[in-house]
C-alpha cells in the first residue's frame, strides 16, 4: 500500500530531515515518520499484520518488532560522546524490541531489522499466531495472498511443537449478506474492527472472550451489511473474512489482474479486475489517493456478473417481418447505413450514453456531424449519493459527454420524444441505452419509428423494438478513457475478450461512420484518442500512455470526495499515515 | 528366328525378374530389418502373417512375420501418391524408373546357373550370353546415377539437390576404381563373357580359391595377391556404387533429411527402394560371378557336379542355381552386416578414399598382375 505520488498543488514546505541508522547504514528521513514507513522508504520490508496506513495503529499483533537504539549521551563529567566512523553518536541498543508501526523516528536513532533478536521475536510471534490456526490453506480463499502464509514461510519454524488440541471456533459463518467469517483463521489484528468504526462509521464488529478463546464477532443483533463491508475482506491479512461472492470460485494465483476503473457511478473508483480464461471472478479496489483512497463500495465491486451472463447480446440481428434474425456485422451495418442515408438529417436523433467512453462519444459526435444530426443527447441517470464514495450521478462519464458532445444531459430528450410523437423524427440511434427504461420512451413512441438502431451490451425490451441490433463490449472488454465527477481522466482496460461477436463501441461507431460516409483511417483505440486529442482542446497533448494507471486531473471542479476529506483530516491529526 | 529361343528367353526374363529378383528384393527388405534387429538384440518384425482374425478366427497366423514385405508393399501402393507443387513433373516421374530399370537390366548378362534341360533341349541359364558381360554391367548400372541426379534436381528442393550432387560425384569417383579393379580379373581370364568366366572357374578353381583343375599352379597362387586387392577394392566400390552404408551419403538422414528421395512418397519412393536393393543383389551376383565361381560347386568337377554333368541332368542344373543363390544370399548378408556395423563415412573421407587410395592402388594392381602373368609361368 505504497503512497502513490500525486500531483499536488503548491510546492510543499521543506521538511525537517533526521538521520537514522537502518541496518548499519545512515539515511535521512522526514521527521516524525513512522519507523515502518521509514523502513519502507529504505526498501526494508517489515512483516506486519495490524498496521494499515489508512487506519489507526493499535500495535496489537507484534509482528513488526524491530531492534532499536538511542544515540549515546555523554556520561557525567564527559563532554564528548563516542562517535562511530560516520561521525554520529554511538548507538546504545535497547535489549527489548519495539514495534515499528506505532513508533516514530528521531534524530540519531538506529533500527535493525535482521538481527538475531528481531528474528527470534518474529519466530516467536509466528509460532503463537499459528498455535490455534487451522490447517485450512487448501480450502482457504486467502491462500496465495495471505500474510500468515507468506510470513510463516519466511519467519516460521516449519513444524509445530503444539501437541494439545486446537481451540474450536465458529467456521463458515455468514456475518453479513456478503461476508463469510471463519473465526479459527482470525489473528485478532482488529483491522476489520477499525475499518468499520473509523471509515465506514458502522461499528458492528468486535472481539469477545479472552486469550486463545478470543473470537471476532458482530455485535448482538447486528450484521456487517454496509455498502463498504467487502473492504474488510481486502484488508483482513488472513482468510478470516472472505467474500461470499468470490468464495471458492477461483484460486487467486490464477487470476490475471487488469487495472481499470469502476463504471458504477461518476466517482470512477480505481479497481483491478481478477479474471481467468475470459471469466471475471472478482473486482478489488486499487489505491488512488485522488479518487477512492484504498476503498470501493460493494455495489460497484459486485456488479460484474452480467458480463458473463446469458443476457448478453452476442450477434448482430436484423428485424424482418417482426422477427429478429441473426446477421453478420457487414449486413447489419449496411442496413443501418441505408436507413440513415434515406432519412433527412432532421429526421434522425441520436441517444448516446454517459456510460460510453470519451472515444466512443467522440466518434458519436463525428457521426452526428457527418450526418448533420442535431438531435443528440444522453440519458441522465441519478441516484442517491452517500457520504463516502458513491456519487449521485450514476453515469460514469457525464463529464466526458458534456465536454465532447457539448450538451447538457437530458435537455433535448423531451423535444426528441415530442418530435417522434409528431412523426418529425423517424430514425433513432440508441447507444448503450434502453430507451424504454431510464430514458422514458414509451412503446408507442418506439412503434412510430421507421428505424431504431440499437447498440447495447444486454438483450432488453427496446432491442425487441429495434430494426437493427448491434452487440457491444462491456466495460471489462474494451479500452478507453472516462472523466469522473472530479474531472479526472482515467483509463479503462480490457480484462476479458468480448463475448461472441460483440465489438467495442468505438469499433462499431467507426464502422457505422465508414458505412455511412466512407470515411476511415482509425485502426486502434490509440488512433481514436489521437484524433480526439487533436479535436477537443481539453485533451491537447495527451495520449493514452501519458494518462497512466492513476489518471490525470483534466477538468477543474469544486467537488470534494467525502472519504478523502476525512482521511486528510485524520492524517493531519497524526492518527493515520495515509 | 528360333521360336524356342524367344520363348525360353521370355520365360527366363519373366522367371528371373518376377520369380527371383523382385521376391528377393522383398525378402531383402525383411532380412535387413531382421538382421539389424538381431544385431541389436531386438526381435524385428514378427507379427504380419495371415490375418485370420479378419475371417473370424481367434488368432492370426504369424508366420514369423514373413508376410511383412507384402504388407509393406501394400502400404506403398495405398499411400497417397503426393507430388509436390514445386517439382519438375516429367523428370520427377521419370527418376524412379531410371533408378530401377538399369538395376534390373544388368541381371540379363549374369549367369545364374550352368544350363538346364527342358523338353530335351539344353538351355543356358543366362538371359543374354553377351561376350562383353562386365562392360555391359558397368555401362548400364552407371545409368542408375541419372535417376538419382534427376530425382535430386527435379525435386526442386535443397536436400534432394544436395543428395543428387553427392550421389553423382560419388558414383563417378568409384566407377573408376571399380573399372580398374576388374581389369586384373579380365587379364587372367582373357575373356569378357561372364558365362565362360564361370565355366572356367568351375573347371579350374575359383579365382580366390584355385583348389582344383589347373588351379594348382604357382602362377594362380601368386596371382592371389593382386586378386585379393582387386576383390577388396571391387567390393568396397560396389558398396559405394549402390549407395549402401557406410557410403550412403546421398540419403544421409542426419544431414539431408532423406537425401534425393526426400520429396517422394508412396510407390515412387518404393521404386527407389526397390532399385537400391536390386542394385545390391546385382552387385553381389557380380562379385560372386567374378571372384567366387558363380554357380559352380566347389570341387564339383570331381564330385560329378560340374558344368558338363548338367547336360541331361536337370537336377544338377537346379543345384547350380541353388548354389549361385546361396552365394549371393551370403553376400547380401555381408552387405547388411556391414551396414549395421560400420558408421557412415564423411564425404571428404569418401572422396579421399576413392581418388587417393583406390584409384592408385587399383592402377598399380593392374601392372602387378601383368608382371606376374609375364614372369611366373
Amino acid at each position, binding site marked *: 500500500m505504497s503512497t502513490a505520488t500525486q500531483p499536488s498543488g503548491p510546492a510543499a514546505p521543506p521538511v525537517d530531515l533526521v538521520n537514522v541508522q537502518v541496518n548499519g547504514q545512515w539515511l535521512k528521513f522526514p521527521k516524525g515518520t513512522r519507523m515502518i514507513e521509514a523502513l519502507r522508504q529504505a526498501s526494508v520490508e517489515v512483516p506486519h499484520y495490524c498496521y494499515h496506513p489508512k487506519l489507526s495503529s493499535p500495535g496489537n499483533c507484534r509482528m513488526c518488532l524491530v531492534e532499536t537504539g538511542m544515540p549515546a549521551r555523554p556520561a557525567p563529567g564527559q563532554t564528548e560522546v563516542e562517535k562511530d566512523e560516520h561521525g554520529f553518536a554511538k548507538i546504545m541498543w535497547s535489549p527489548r524490541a519495539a514495534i515499528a508501526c506505532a513508533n516514530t523516528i528521531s534524530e540519531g536513532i538506529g533500527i535493525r531489522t535482521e538481527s538475531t533478536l528481531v528474528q527470534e521475536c518474529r519466530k516467536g510471534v509466528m509460532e503463537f499466531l499459528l498455535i490455534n490456526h487451522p*490447517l485450512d*490453506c*487448501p*480450502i482457504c480463499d486467502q*491462500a496465495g495472498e495471505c500474510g500468515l502464509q507468506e510470513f510463516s514461510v519466511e519467519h516460521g519454524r516449519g513444524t509445530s511443537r503444539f501437541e494439545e*488440541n*486446537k481451540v474450536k471456533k465458529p*467456521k*463458515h459463518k455468514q456475518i453479513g449478506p456478503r461476508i463469510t467469517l471463519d473465526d479459527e483463521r482470525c489473528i485478532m489484528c482488529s483491522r476489520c474492527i477499525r475499518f468499520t468504526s473509523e471509515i465506514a462509521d458502522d461499528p458492528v464488529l468486535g472481539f469477545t472472550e479472552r486469550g486463545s478463546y478470543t473470537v471476532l464477532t458482530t455485535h448482538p443483533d447486528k450484521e456487517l451489511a454496509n455498502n463498504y463491508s467487502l473492504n474488510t475482506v481486502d484488508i483482513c491479512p488472513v482468510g478470516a473474512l472472505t467474500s461470499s461472492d468470490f*468464495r*471458492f*470460485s*477461483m*484460486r487467486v*494465483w*490464477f487470476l490475471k489482474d487488469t487495472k481499470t476503473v469502476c463504471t458504477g457511478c461518476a466517482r470512477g473508483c480505481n479497481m483491478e479486475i481478477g479474471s481467468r480464461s475470459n471469466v471475471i471472478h472478482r473486482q478489488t479496489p486499487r489505491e488512488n489517493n485522488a479518487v477512492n483512497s484504498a476503498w470501493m463500495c460493494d455495489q460497484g465491486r459486485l456488479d460484474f456478473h452480467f458480463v458473463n451472463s446469458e443476457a448478453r447480446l452476442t450477434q448482430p440481428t436484423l428485424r424482418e417481418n417482426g422477427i429478429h434474425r441473426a446477421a453478420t456485422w457487414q449486413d447489419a451495418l449496411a442496413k443501418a447505413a441505408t436507413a440513415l442515408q434515406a432519412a433527412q438529417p432532421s429526421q434522425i436523433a441520436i441517444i448516446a450514453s454517459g456510460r460510453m467512453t470519451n472515444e466512443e462519444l467522440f466518434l458519436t459526435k463525428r457521426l452526428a456531424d457527418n450526418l448533420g444530426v442535431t438531435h443528440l443527447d444522453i440519458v441522465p441517470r441519478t441516484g442517491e449519493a452517500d457520504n463516502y464514495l458513491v456519487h449521485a450521478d450514476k453515469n460514469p462519464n457525464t463529464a466526458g459527454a458534456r465536454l465532447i458532445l457539448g450538451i447538457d444531459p437530458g435537455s433535448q430528450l423531451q423535444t426528441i420524444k415530442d418530435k417522434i410523437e409528431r412523426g418529425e423524427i423517424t430514425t433513432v440511434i440508441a447507444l448503450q441505452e434502453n430507451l424504454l427504461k431510464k430514458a422514458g420512451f414509451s412503446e408507442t413512441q418506439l412503434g412510430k419509428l421507421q428505424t431504431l438502431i440499437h447498440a447495447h451490451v444486454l438483450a432488453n425490451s427496446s432491442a425487441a423494438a429495434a430494426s437493427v441490433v448491434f452487440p457491444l463490449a462491456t466495460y471489462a472488454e474494451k479500452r478507453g478513457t472516462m472523466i469522473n465527477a472530479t474531472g479526472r481522466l482515467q483509463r479503462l482496460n480490457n480484462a476479458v475478450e468480448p463475448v461472441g461477436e460483440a465489438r467495442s463501441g468505438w469499433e462499431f461507431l467507426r464502422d457505422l461512420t465508414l458505412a455511412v460516409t466512407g470515411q476511415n483511417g482509425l485502426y486502434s483505440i490509440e488512433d481514436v484518442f489521437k484524433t480526439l486529442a487533436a479535436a477537443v482542446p481539453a485533451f491537447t497533448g495527451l495520449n493514452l500512455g501519458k494518462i497512466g494507471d492513476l489518471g490525470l486531473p483534466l477538468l477543474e471542479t469544486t467537488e470534494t470526495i467525502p472519504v478523502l476529506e476525512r482521511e486528510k483530516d485524520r492524517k493531519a491529526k497524526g492518527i493515520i499515515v495515509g | 528366328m528360333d521360336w524356342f529361343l524367344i520363348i525360353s528367353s521370355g520365360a527366363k526374363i519373366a522367371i528371373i525378374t518376377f520369380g527371383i529378383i523382385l521376391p528377393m528384393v522383398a525378402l531383402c527388405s525383411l532380412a535387413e530389418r531382421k*538382421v539389424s*534387429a*538381431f*544385431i*541389436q*538384440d*531386438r*526381435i524385428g518384425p*514378427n507379427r504380419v502373417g495371415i490375418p485370420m482374425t479378419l475371417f473370424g478366427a481367434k488368432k492370426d497366423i504369424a508366420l514369423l512375420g514373413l508376410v511383412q514385405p507384402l504388407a509393406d508393399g501394400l502400404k506403398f501402393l495405398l499411400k497417397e501418391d503426393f507430388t509436390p507443387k514445386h517439382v519438375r513433373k516429367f523428370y520427377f516421374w521419370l527418376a524412379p524408373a531410371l533408378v530401377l530399370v538399369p538395376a534390373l537390366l544388368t541381371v540379363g548378362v549374369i549367369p545364374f546357373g550352368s544350363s538346364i534341360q527342358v523338353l530335351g533341349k539344353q538351355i543356358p541359364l543366362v538371359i543374354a550370353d553377351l561376350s562383353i558381360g562386365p562392360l555391359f554391367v558397368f555401362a548400364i548400372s552407371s545409368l542408375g546415377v541419372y535417376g538419382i541426379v534427376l530425382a535430386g534436381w527435379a525435386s526442386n528442393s535443397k536436400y534432394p539437390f544436395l543428395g543428387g550432387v553427392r550421389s553423382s560425384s560419388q558414383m563417378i569417383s568409384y566407377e573408376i576404381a571399380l573399372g580398374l579393379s576388374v581389369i586384373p580379373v579380365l587379364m587372367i581370364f582373357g575373356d569378357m563373357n561372364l558365362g565362360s568366366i564361370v565355366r572356367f572357374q568351375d573347371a579350374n578353381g575359383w579365382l580366390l580359391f584355385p583348389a582344383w583343375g589347373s588351379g594348382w599352379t604357382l602362377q594362380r597362387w601368386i596371382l592371389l595377391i593382386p586378386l585379393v586387392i582387386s576383390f577388396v577394392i571391387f567390393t568396397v566400390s560396389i558398396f559405394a556404387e549402390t549407395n549402401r552404408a557406410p557410403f550412403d551419403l546421398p540419403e544421409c538422414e542426419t544431414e539431408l533429411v532423406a537425401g534425393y528421395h526426400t520429396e517422394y512418397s508412396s510407390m515412387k519412393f518404393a521404386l527407389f527402394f526397390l532399385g537400391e536393393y536390386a542394385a545390391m543383389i546385382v552387385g553381389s551376383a557380380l562379385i560372386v560371378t567374378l571372384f567366387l565361381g558363380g554357380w559352380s560347386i566347389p570341387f564339383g568337377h570331381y564330385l560329378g557336379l560340374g558344368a558338363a554333368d548338367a547336360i541331361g541332368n536337370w537336377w544338377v542344373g537346379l543345384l547350380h542355381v541353388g548354389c549361385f543363390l546361396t552365394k549371393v544370399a551370403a553376400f547380401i548378408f555381408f552387405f547388411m*552386416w*556391414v551396414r*549395421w*556395423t*560400420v558408421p557412415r563415412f564423411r564425404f571428404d573421407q569418401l572422396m579421399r578414399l576413392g581418388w587417393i587410395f583406390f584409384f592408385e592402388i587399383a592402377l598399380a594392381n593392374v601392372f602387378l598382375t601383368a608382371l606376374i602373368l609375364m614372369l611366373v609361368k
Partner: protein
Amino acid sequence: MAYTVPRPKLSLLERTYFPTLIGGLKITLGHFIRFVQGKGKVTMSYPEEKWDASLPEHYRGAPTLVTDEHERERCVACQLCEFICPPRAITIVPEQIPAADKFAKVEKRPKAFEIDMIRCIYCGMCEEVCPEQAIFLRKDYAITGTTRAEMVHDKTRLYELGGIREGLVNKWNPLK
C-alpha cells in the same frame, strides 16, 4: 584458452582401418549369433506378455482421485495440482459443499475435475503437491481411446480408477 585435443597416434595397420572394421564386424556378428541361438532376447512381446506383475511400487501410471474410508472425496479443490501440472492437463471447477451434505464441514470440493490424458506426461507432480493426499498415480498405463473426448478423464472416471485409500492423514479428525 583454446586447447587442442591431441589425436592418438595410429600405427600403419590401424590407419588402414581394417583392424577396427573387423573388430566391429566381430562384435555385431557375435550379437547376431547369440540372438539366433536365442540367448540375447530382452524384448517383451506386448500385449501378449505384460510386465504388470513386475511393475515397481513407485511406478507412475494414470493419475486418479481417491476417496477415504468414509467415502469422502479427499480432494478439496485447492487447485494446487492444476497449478503445478507442467502440461496443464488438469482443469478444476471448485464448489461449496451444500449444507445438507454429510461432509458439509469440509466446505469445499471439486464440482468438476478433469485430467486430459492426452496432455498428461505422468510426471507425478500432482500427487506430490496435493496437500490432501487425494490424487495418486496408479499403475494403469494403457490409457487409450478413439476420440479426444474419451481421453479426458472426468471426475467420475477418476474416482472409478482411483477407488478408496485408507489409513492416511485425515486432517478432518475432530481432535486435530
